[in-house]
């Protein structure tokens, strides 16, 4: 029983991280049609910024704010400074992904140059374990699950009930039509990058908490499970990302725990990803993938 609680608990914690990250990633794709490989690097940079603030004495809440702000600013700058100008020049999607890779390299290595080849850890995470059903979890990680639930609900609320949400969906489906109908697509896109960037930054903070010690390239290494979650659920669909995150989080923890090999965690995510790509690359919720012609 204890093992089950441990598996489910750890699975939920991983799922929380992947969900927050995945929803941000998929939002960027949905609104601007860009597969942003630099997403992991932004997570890493935000995690590092939070670390610096945390090192200087700030508590986790302030660090979280810094992480969110860093993520938001970097993401907005990336879209405004690089993707948008190239898109205006009618650059193809392949060019855009190469650009995102370039940005990823630049970000990762700037963090490396500034922070050094060391591992960073947050302080003041709270010592007393939270006991749930007889198993102890670090309070910061329980907090992450809670925060993720709140954030997912907020995203859901925004998409369903706010004008912005409707505007985002309209822009995602048909930007010209949206513009012609009076939607301020430029503003909508900026906001989408700010919001997804904030999610990305928070995911970076969560990542730093969960792995305990991270370095300049940890963010990029999380790209694979994030992509796995997003592809599994269906790229461009935020509920898909949540579903994918939950699946990958739980399945990988269960597999690793049952087999007793912790390396299995990552490999299970990979296996799921490869399997999806071979069998059903458009994912479970395939609406956006089909619309964008991702699978021919």
């Amino acid at each position, binding site marked *: 029983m204890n093992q089950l609680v441990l598996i489910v608990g750890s699975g939920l914690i991983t799922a929380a991280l992947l969900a927050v990250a995945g929803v941000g990633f998929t939002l960027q794709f949905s609104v601007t049609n860009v597969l942003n490989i630099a997403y992991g690097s932004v997570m890493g940079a935000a995690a590092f910024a939070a670390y610096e603030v945390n090192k200087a004495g700030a508590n986790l809440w302030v660090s979280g704010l810094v992480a969110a702000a860093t993520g938001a600013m970097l993401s907005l700058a990336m879209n405004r400074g690089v993707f948008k100008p190239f898109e205006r020049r009618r650059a193809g999607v392949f*060019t855009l992904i*190469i650009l995102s890779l370039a940005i990823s*390299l630049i970000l990762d290595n*700037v963090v490396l140059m500034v922070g050094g080849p060391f591992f960073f850890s947050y302080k003041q995470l709270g010592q007393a374990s939270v006991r749930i059903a007889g198993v102890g979890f670090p309070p910061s990680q329980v907090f992450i699950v809670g925060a993720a639930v709140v954030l997912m609900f907020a995203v859901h609320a925004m998409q369903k009930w706010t004008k912005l949400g409707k505007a985002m969906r309209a822009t995602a489906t048909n930007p010209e039509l949206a513009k012609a109908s009076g939607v301020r697509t430029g503003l909508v896109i900026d906001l989408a990058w700010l919001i997804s960037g904030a999610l990305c930054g928070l995911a970076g903070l969560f990542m730093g908490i969960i792995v305990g010690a991270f370095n300049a390239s940890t963010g990029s290494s999380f790209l694979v499970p994030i992509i796995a979650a997003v592809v599994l659920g269906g790229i461009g669909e935020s509920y898909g990302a949540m579903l994918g995150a939950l699946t990958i989080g739980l399945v990988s923890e269960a597999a690793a725990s049952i087999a007793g090999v912790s390396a299995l965690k990552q490999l299970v995510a990979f296996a799921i990803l490869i399997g999806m*790509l071979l069998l059903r690359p458009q994912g479970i919720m395939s609406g956006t993938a089909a619309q964008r*012609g991702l699978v021919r």
Partner: protein
Amino acid sequence: MSVATGWEFVAITMLVYLGVNLIACLGLNLQYGTAGVLNFAFIVFQAAGAYVAALFAVGPSSSSGGFQTYVGGWDFPFPLPWLVATITGAVIAVPIGLVGLRRLRSDYQAMVMLVVSLIATTVVVSFPGFLNGSAGIALVPPPLGTLLNPISVQYGWLYVGLTAVCCMVVFVLVSALARSPLGRNWRAMRENEAVAIAVGLDVNRLRMLVFVVGGAIAALSGAVLVDFISAWSPDAWLYPETFAFFTALIVGGLGNSMGALIGAVLVPTLLLEGVTLLPTFANPTVSLGLQWVVIGVVIIAFLWFRPQGIVPERKTVIAPPDNTAAALATGHKAQEAG
């Protein structure tokens, strides 16, 4: 492999690296420049070639103290390891191609292949019994090490010669293919796949073929490199390395061998390897990080200012049959087609 004097060491090292990078760039150029096939897992092929060449020359683990664990380990004479490595590159292109060459949108496919590359690294690192994990395989004996003293200057130049021979073979191969009807089919597939299918091209076969040939070439480059540096570990083939080769092609110019040469000189050789041979300033991490930042900036700059690269693809001009040439020469002007 160390040699007597300073400048010769630098020259030999730079030339071998240039050769290796040129071979790799020519292979990637065939895939991406000529056929328009995206292979963001390119470095995995070079790595496979390097590992196989190492395994076929290093002998069983016990012979070197038993502190490395890997599968196989034989002691075959040169050039057998290189040949097996090249074939391996061709062989693994098939399953990787099946995963990656499903008909996906180009950037989605790029992302898929990138993931394949990351997975390969993780698999090797997570299963240390396979290829000695993150420590990698070391103590690979130099080829023809019994003929000449491997630490002599002469051996160094011999190795440069071997590398040059491989370069020439690959160059001739790639040029011949590019000029052939097969090459034209690849370019047509690159330009407009739907029309290519309509005029009778089996694009699935064409894609897999270029993947296999390019994979073999990449693997050869790995074999040449590993025998020079005598060791190979996951650090040498992280996913950004593929990106460095793409940058080389974008800078040098796609679709032509001269562009590949210029790109190979400027990017992986000068920018990455050359910088490590200079006296490093202050902090080695800073110079390492700076290299990649420069690569990132260079590629963004080139894509903005000169996407066709330094040497754009050359047009294939075909002469008219003799009577038509005469007619054209006498000033027969066709009406301006409207």
